[in-house]
């Protein structure tokens, strides 16, 4: 009875705190600029099913892909058991599904145990890959400190959770009235000779450790790259369906260009009623980015696949697409905390461009889309880079001087180089070929 009460209070607190955090993150994401990503819903569901549910992008790196899918499948299926744990916890029952499912229950739990071992194994492999094997993508500058600790914590927590589950069952395996399952029967000798009271205590401790651990983990997610286990789904659904090379045409600029090209337009005409004041061109801070870029930031797994294929990064430039995503999230979290504290955003004298991301970084991008292609959850770092460049070019007028010259050339000669427009057709002068067409 007491146990049930304690459980219900913990469950409500865990779920409530998580919900509050999710509401805050949703608010943060919609600080971004509007963008319509609801067209072609059928294609969006398909993309989500393929990339998030089906993990299609993970397998391009077979080792990481295999173990990741193991953890993913294990996580999703073992959570079915959490449903039973929650019901048991609330009503003070024990393995409520067992009498309902009979022998099949033993098969299912046995299967979950095998998955649990798989998850454990995969977590150990991942810890080894991150800490022992020198994988370059886990050693970049942006990974120092918290991001590396975060990744290790997640793996350790998962190992603890899986161990608790297996040890709980192993304790039960030694109880004559209960009995174990496929893997726990093999683990049973660990607790051989423990008194019935001792076994019961071990079983209870593991049960509580498992469920409290899960609730704590749930509330850890929003502060961690592990949030991707949820965000991967909306993020792939809202991903760009147009070809990767297609950049949006800025609506605000369209209006101005139309005015400039229309000889009859009155440039001094008052804006129509209800017309919003023209905002900033491009992005200086997170609020200037389209909301999808902010969703991207919360979805990033910090896996570094993007950075490991980035031509700028691999040739030693400062640019790292992963850092672009991490900086965007960190700044957004800071802006969010500012709003929580002050009710609405109070200028803190900082901005994404300048305080987090430097001009040198964004200027190095070749817009090659290798990062977009590599990302397992369809994040687009290039769209953030482009928005920051737009601010640099159109608001701050701080582009590399060669780009300034290039702009001037296009404006004056219609070409990025300083060639006279009149020579554009000179390639066709004296165009002599060995044609066979007129031979006959």
């Amino acid at each position, binding site marked *: 009875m007491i146990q049930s009460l304690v459980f219900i209070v913990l469950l409500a607190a865990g779920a409530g705190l998580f919900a509050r955090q999710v509401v805050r993150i949703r608010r943060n994401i919609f600080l971004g600029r509007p963008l319509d990503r609801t067209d072609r819903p059928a294609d969006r569901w398909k993309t989500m099913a393929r990339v998030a549910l089906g993990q299609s992008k993970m397998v391009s790196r077979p080792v990481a892909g295999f173990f990741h899918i193991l953890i993913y499948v294990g996580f999703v299926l073992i959570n079915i058991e959490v449903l039973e744990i929650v019901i048991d916890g609330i009503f003070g029952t024990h393995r409520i599904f067992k009498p309902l499912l009979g022998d099949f229950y033993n098969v299912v739990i046995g299967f979950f145990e095998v998955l649990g071992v798989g998850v454990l194994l995969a977590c150990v492999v991942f810890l080894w890959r991150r800490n022992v094997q020198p994988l370059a993508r886990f050693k970049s500058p942006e990974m120092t400190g918290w991001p590396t600790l975060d990744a290790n914590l997640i793996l350790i927590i998962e190992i603890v959770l899986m161990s608790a589950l297996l040890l709980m069952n192993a304790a039960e395996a030694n109880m004559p009235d209960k009995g174990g399952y496929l893997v726990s029967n093999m683990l049973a000798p660990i607790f051989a000779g423990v008194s019935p009271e001792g076994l019961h205590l071990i079983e209870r401790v593991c049960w509580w450790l498992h469920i409290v651990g899960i609730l704590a983990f749930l509330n850890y997610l929003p502060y961690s790259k592990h949030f991707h286990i949820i965000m991967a789904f909306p993020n792939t659904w809202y991903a760009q369906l147009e070809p990767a090379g297609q950049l949006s045409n800025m609506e605000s*600029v369209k209006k101005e260009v139309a005015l400039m090209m229309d000889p009859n337009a009155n440039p001094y005409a008052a804006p129509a009623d209800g017309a919003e004041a023209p905002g900033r061109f491009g992005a200086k801070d997170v609020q200037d980015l389209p909301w999808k870029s902010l969703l991207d930031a919360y979805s990033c797994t910090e896996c570094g696949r993007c950075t490991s294929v980035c031509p700028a990064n691999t040739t030693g430039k400062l640019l790292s697409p992963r850092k672009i995503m991490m900086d965007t999230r960190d700044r957004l979290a800071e802006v969010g905390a500012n709003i929580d504290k002050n009710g609405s955003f109070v200028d803190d004298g900082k901005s994404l461009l300048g305080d987090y991301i430097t001009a040198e970084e964004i200027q190095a991008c070749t817009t090659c889309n290798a990062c977009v292609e590599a990302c397992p959850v369809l994040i687009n770092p290039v769209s953030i880079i*482009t928005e920051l460049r737009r601010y640099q070019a159109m608001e701050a007028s701080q582009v590399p001087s060669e780009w300034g010259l290039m702009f001037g050339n296009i404006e004056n000669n219609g070409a990025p180089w300083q060639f006279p427009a009149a020579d554009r057709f000179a390639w066709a002068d004296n*165009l002599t070929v060995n044609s066979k067409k007129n*031979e006959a």
Partner: protein
Amino acid sequence: MSTTLKIDTMAELAARGEAPEILFWVGCAGSFDDRARRITRAFAAILHEVGIKFAVLGTEESCTGDPAKRAGNEFLFQMQAMQNIQVMNMYEVKKIVTACPHCFNTLKNEYPDLGGNYEVLHHATLLQQLINEGRIKVQGGGTFKGKRITFHDSCYLGRANGIYEAPRAVLEALDADLVEMKRSKANGLCCGAGGAQMFKEAEKGNKEVNIERMDDVLESKAEVVAAACPFCMTMLTDGIKNKEKESSIHVYDLAELVAKANGLID
């Protein structure tokens, strides 16, 4: 037989009350850059040889605005786009082919929203179609029979627009020994010129991107690197010069390879 070609402009055709089958969009590199002009000439020769009625805008063509857009100057991009769209809509252009993947991407993906709706092809796709239709034949095995050729994917053709097979189909028609580089297709490595990098020095690093790409080129042991982009052409050629391999490794555009194999150009 040596023939001197006369390239029609849209203005000339319009004056005669005619319209071409296709507009050949030459692009800035193809118009001004010495090396890229040779690609333009080779492609024009092919179009002429297969008897496609084509025309160019000539001096009425202007930069698509791609480098301005990628460098952040959306104003300049849209000004350029509106100007080009006005010209093309005036000539009632329906179909465009271009040998530049950057022009291709911009014309195909970014112009429609600004009022420029055309069927846009990259020359790799058109060449593949012509080969499939039997309109281009590589006589007697051609110059490249059995040669080790590798294809360098342009970012704006490959990842940006998903075109990987058309250029390879063209190379296969040459009866060449097509080999892939370590990083190819969706994993292809950029030449370093995209996103307006062509027009400025690279940021501080430990290597140039095109030099990094040379590792893949050399490892493939190819004698010919096929490109499908005038910027890739520049970067690859410079990279090979840097490695002092210009006597053993040659860079050609797809159009040049087809034109050479057909004996249209030397």
